[in-house]
C-alpha cells in the first residue's frame, strides 16, 4: 500500500466532443457490484439529451460523407487506443460488473471494434446492387446511413454490450446519442475518452449517463432522431417508447427481453437496421 492519495476522476457527459457536466447539475452515486461507492456520475436531463441530438445532427454530414476507408481507419484507431488502455478497462469492468473474467470481455470489446472497422468499406458491395431493370437505364442501389440514432445501451454488459450496439451504428455512417447503462455507466464514460482521442469527430458519438427511463422518452419522440435502439430500455417502457417513435416514423430496433450473449460473433442485422437503401436511375443512350 502506497501512502499516496489517488486522483479520483469526475465522470461527466460526452456531448459534441466535449465533456460537460449535466446542465441540471445533478449527479447520482454509482456503486460497484458489492454496493460500495465508486463515483458520482452525471445525471443527464432532457436538455442534455436535446443538446446531444443537436451535436449528433451537426456531425452527421461530415461523418456520413467521409470515405468508407476513412471511417474504417477511425474505428480501427478506437481498437488501438482501447488496447492501450486495456488494464484500465479490465479494472472498470471488474468494478462495475463484478465479473471474474473481465480480461476476456475487454478483449472481445477490442476485437469487436476491429470487426466493425473492417465492414465500413464492404457494406456497399454486400448490401448494394446494380439493378438489371427492363429498360434503357442504369440503376444502382446503395446503402446509406439513416441519420441520428438514439441508442439505449444494454443495462448489464457495460462495455462489450455497449460496443456491440454502438460500433455498428457508426460503422454504417450514422451519428448517435447513447444512453449508457444506468447503474454501470463508468466504462461508457471512459470509452468516451478513447473516442475523443481516436479521431472520431466530435458529435459522432454522444454519451449520456443517468436514468434511462427519464431520457428515453425524449429521444424516442425527438423529431431529429431517425432511429431508436431499444436494447437497454426497461421492459415496462418499451411499448410507450415505440409509440412515441411512431410520431416521426422512426426505425425501431426492438430487443429481446433478456440481453443476448454479447460474446457471440455478430451479424449484419444491427447495421442493416440503421441503413437506408437509395436507388439511383439514369437513362442510357448516345
Amino acid at each position, binding site marked *: 500500500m502506497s501512502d499516496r492519495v489517488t486522483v479520483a476522476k469526475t465522470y461527466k457527459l460526452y456531448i459534441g466532443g466535449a465533456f460537460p457536466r449535466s446542465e441540471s447539475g445533478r449527479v447520482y452515486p454509482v456503486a460497484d457490484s458489492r454496493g460500495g461507492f465508486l463515483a458520482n456520475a452525471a445525471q443527464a436531463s432532457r436538455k442534455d439529451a436535446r443538446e446531444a441530438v443537436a451535436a449528433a445532427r451537426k456531425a452527421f454530414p461530415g461523418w456520413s*460523407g467521409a470515405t468508407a476507408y476513412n471511417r474504417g481507419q477511425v474505428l480501427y484507431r478506437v481498437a488501438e487506443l482501447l488496447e492501450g488502455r486495456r488494464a484500465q478497462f479490465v479494472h472498470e469492468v471488474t468494478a462495475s460488473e463484478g465479473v471474474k473474467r473481465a480480461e476476456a470481455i475487454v478483449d472481445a470489446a477490442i476485437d469487436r471494434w476491429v470487426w466493425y472497422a473492417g465492414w465500413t468499406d464492404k457494406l456497399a458491395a*454486400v*448490401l448494394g*446492387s446494380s*439493378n*438489371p*431493370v*427492363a*429498360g434503357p*437505364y442504369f*440503376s444502382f*442501389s446503395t446503402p446509406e446511413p*439513416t*441519420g441520428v440514432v438514439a441508442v439505449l445501451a444494454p443495462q448489464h454488459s457495460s462495455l462489450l454490450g455497449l460496443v456491440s450496439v454502438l460500433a455498428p451504428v457508426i460503422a454504417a455512417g450514422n451519428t448517435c446519442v447513447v444512453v449508457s447503462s444506468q447503474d454501470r455507466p463508468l466504462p461508457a464514460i471512459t470509452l468516451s475518452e478513447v473516442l475523443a482521442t481516436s479521431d472520431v469527430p466530435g458529435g459522432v458519438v454522444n454519451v449520456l449517463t443517468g436514468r434511462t427511463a427519464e431520457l428515453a422518452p425524449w429521444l424516442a419522440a425527438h*423529431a431529429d432522431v*431517425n432511429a431508436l435502439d431499444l436494447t437497454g430500455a426497461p421492459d415496462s417502457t*418499451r*411499448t*410507450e*417508447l*415505440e*409509440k412515441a*417513435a*411512431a*410520431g*416521426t*416514423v422512426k*426505425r425501431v430496433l*426492438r430487443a429481446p427481453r433478456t440481453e443476448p450473449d454479447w460474446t457471440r460473433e455478430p*451479424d*449484419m*442485422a444491427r447495421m*442493416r437496421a440503421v441503413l*437506408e*437503401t*437509395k*436507388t*439511383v*436511375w*439514369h*437513362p442510357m443512350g448516345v
Partner: protein
Amino acid sequence: MTMGPENWHYAPAPESRDIANLKANYQMFVDGKFVDGAGEPLKTVNPATEEVLAEVSTASAADVDNAVKVARRAHDKVWGRMPGSERAKYLFRIARLVQERSRELAVLESLDNGKPIKESRDVDVPTAAAHFFYHAGWADKLGYAGFGPSPRSLGVAGQVIPWNFPLLMAAWKIAPALACGNTVVLKPAETTPLTALVLGEICQQAELPPGVVNILPGAGDVGSELVNHAGVDKVAFTGSTEVGKLIQRSLAGSGKKLTLELGGKAANIVFDDAPLDQAVEGIVNGIFFNQGHVCCAGSRLLVQESVAEELLEKLRQRVSTLRLGDPLDKNTDVGAINSKAQLDRIRELTESGDAEGADRWTSPCPVPDKGFFFAPTVFSGVQQSMRIAREEIFGPVLSVLTFRTPEEAVAKANNTPYGLSAGIWTEKGSRILWAAQRMRAGVVWSNTFNRFDPTAPFGGYQESGFGREGGRAGLEAYLDV
C-alpha cells in the same frame, strides 16, 4: 384555314368497356373461394362518370379473424413447408395469367380508378406481371439473398394497399410475401377493390393452394382489424403518412414486423445546364402521371433562377397540350381524380396556394362536366413555408420554387420530413452524382422520373416510411431475419 398542329383534332379512340368483364357484384376471396362478407357492402364508382360500377361485399371483424386463421393454416400446413422450387412455379403461373388477362385488367383498372388506359395498359398491368415473374425466381434462391443460408418465412402477412395503383400495389405486396413463404390477407382500397379481386380469380386459375392469398375489401376499419389482429406476424402498409403513423403506433409492443411506404413531397431539381425540353417531359411525367396520385410524384419543382422563366414558359405550353378526359380513351393523358374526397382535398390545398400568395396557372384544357376532374395546375412564386410546398397534394398540381446555387437546391430539396424520391436534371455527370448523394430520399431519378422495376428497391427515408419493395433488399421485409 391552315393545317397547322393547332387545328388538328384527335378522334376519340376509346377502349371497349366490355373488355373489363364487369360484374354487378363482387365477393371477398377467402380460402380459395369467393364468399360474401358480413360487412356492409360498398359501391365502387367510376370516377370519370360518377356511376356505380359494382357492389362489393366487405369483411366484418369476424371475417378478418377467419381469413387470418385460414392464412395461418395455409402457411403452417402447406405454403410454408412447400419447397421453394414449387412455390416459384405458382408465382410464374400467376405472372403469366396476369399477362394473359392484361387487357381486361387494364380496362377494369381504368374504370375503377380513373387512370388513363394508356397508363394502366403500359405501366400498371405489365409491371404487376413483372413483379410476380421477378419474385417467382427468388422463391427457391432465398439462401443467396444475403440473409443467411435458409432464411425462414414470417407467417401471415396483413397487407393494406392504396387506391392509386390498385393491381400493381397488390402485386408489390403479394409477390415477395409468397416468394418468401408467407401467406397473405390483403385489403384493397375502399374505392378500388375490383382488380385485386380479379387477381383472386387468377390465384384460383393458377390453382394456388386455398388460403395462401385472401382478399378482403373494405374501408379503414377492416384495415385496422387486420393489422391489429394477433394472428398476423407481418404488416405491410402503403398509404398516407398520417395512417402509417397510426399503424406504427398501434403495433407498438406487438413484435410484428412492419414496413411502411408512405407519402412524399419530392423535389425535382432542374439545373441551368439541363436539357430543358427533356426536363419538361420529365416534369410533366413526374407530376401529371396518374393525375399526380403518386406518392413519389415530383410535386416540388426546383428550378435554377437563370432558366426559370424559359422553363416555365415551355412547361405551360407543354401542359396545355395534355388531354384530360375519358380514362378509356387511348389519347387521354390525364384521367379522373379517384374520388370526390380526393378532389375536395386537392381543391382545398390549391385554395390555400391562392390564399398564401402563389400564382396559379391552370391548363386551358376542356374539363368534362361529369365525373371528378381537376385540370393540370402549376403554381409559381411558391415559398417553402406555403402548404402547397410542404403538404402532399396527391393531385395534378405542381409547385414551382427557384434556387441560385446547387447547395441551395439541395437544402431546399431536403427541407421536408418526407424522403421518398427526388429528381435531378443536368447534363453534368459529376453534378448528378454529387446531388444524388445528398438527396435524403430513397429513389433518385436523374434525367428521368417515375421509373419502376421489380429489380430496383423502392422505399422512403424519414417520414416516407421504412423497408424496401423490390430487389434483393425488398425480401428482408418478408423474412425472419
